[in-house]
């Protein structure tokens, strides 16, 4: 059992089928990395956190009563893992800074966008990251966040409006949403 709908894979994984569990990991890895990235601001650290979340899920899977809510349950574990990392980390900007040291126009723009992303609420930043990670569909985001596609659309629009507003304040007058 390494294909099929999530519910069947979760059922099989809960009974000890390793292949089903790794298939679920494969499916939800981008979403978990996106969630951790939105909280930690570090892509590499986000990947570590996502993997740690899968390890915790492997142990706790029998405790999951509603198998259909696997994605939301996994996302909650991932957020907890990311919070643990944040607790043990010095308070720094949550979005990673540009690696390049030169002050090119591109880097300045990137910095401004990251700064604007940092000003968003956690839930708004989370939905932006989920949407922009390889263009995840509203359906996939809905499964992970446990909210309707309409709610996702609304949250995403609000987040983008805020981003545009922050960028305008930063001197990017051309952004009007």
């Amino acid at each position: 059992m390494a294909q099929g709908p999530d519910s069947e894979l979760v059922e099989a994984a809960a009974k000890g089928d390793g292949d089903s569990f790794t298939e679920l990991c494969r499916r939800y890895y981008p979403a978990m990395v996106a969630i951790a990235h939105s909280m930690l601001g570090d892509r590499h650290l986000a990947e570590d956190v996502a993997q740690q979340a899968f390890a915790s899920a492997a142990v706790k899977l029998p405790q999951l009563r509603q198998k259909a809510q696997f994605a939301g349950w996994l996302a909650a574990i991932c957020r907890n893992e990311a919070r643990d990392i944040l607790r043990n980390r010095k308070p720094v900007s949550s979005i990673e800074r540009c690696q390049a040291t030169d002050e090119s126009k591109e880097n300045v723009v990137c910095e401004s966008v990251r700064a604007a992303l940092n000003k968003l609420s956690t839930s708004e930043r989370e939905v932006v990251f989920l949407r922009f990670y390889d263009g995840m569909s509203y359906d996939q985001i809905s499964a992970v966040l446990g909210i309707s596609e309409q709610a996702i659309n609304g949250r995403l629009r609000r987040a983008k409006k805020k981003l545009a507003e922050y960028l305008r304040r930063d001197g990017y007058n051309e952004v009007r949403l």
Partner: protein
Amino acid sequence: MNEQKDEKWLDELISRSIDTSEPRFDAEQWKQKYPGEFQALVEREARRPQAARFDVLSIVMRSRIAQVAAAAVFIIAVGLFIAHLDHRGQQRGQPEQLAKSPAEMVTSASLRTAYNRGGMKALEEQCDRAARMLGQGLLSMKDVVEESNG
């Protein structure tokens, strides 16, 4: 710049600013990194037969119809058990009635059994039955005791 163009520009800006390339999950590397957790997961496969036995109970507890059926079976089983005990009790109470002779009916053991079963009333009844079998009238307790002590 209209709103649509602005949104597209913002989307491109976000995509450029954060590394959003799709991450790839390497299952083998993950298993090597977390061998204990993966082992804990697959070891459940070996424990499945035992778990299946408890699944019957969980199925019964999950379905209302199954709960009612289980309760009915339990009540019937208890009823049958009580009926069986009652039947055995009646069988135990019968040796006096099945006694072959009046002499056997008035032995101290037989009278004690009758007394244990129904007190003085049962004792009297047994004596009356013994007397009737002998073709005599009703006996008093004094006669019975004297008779049984020889």
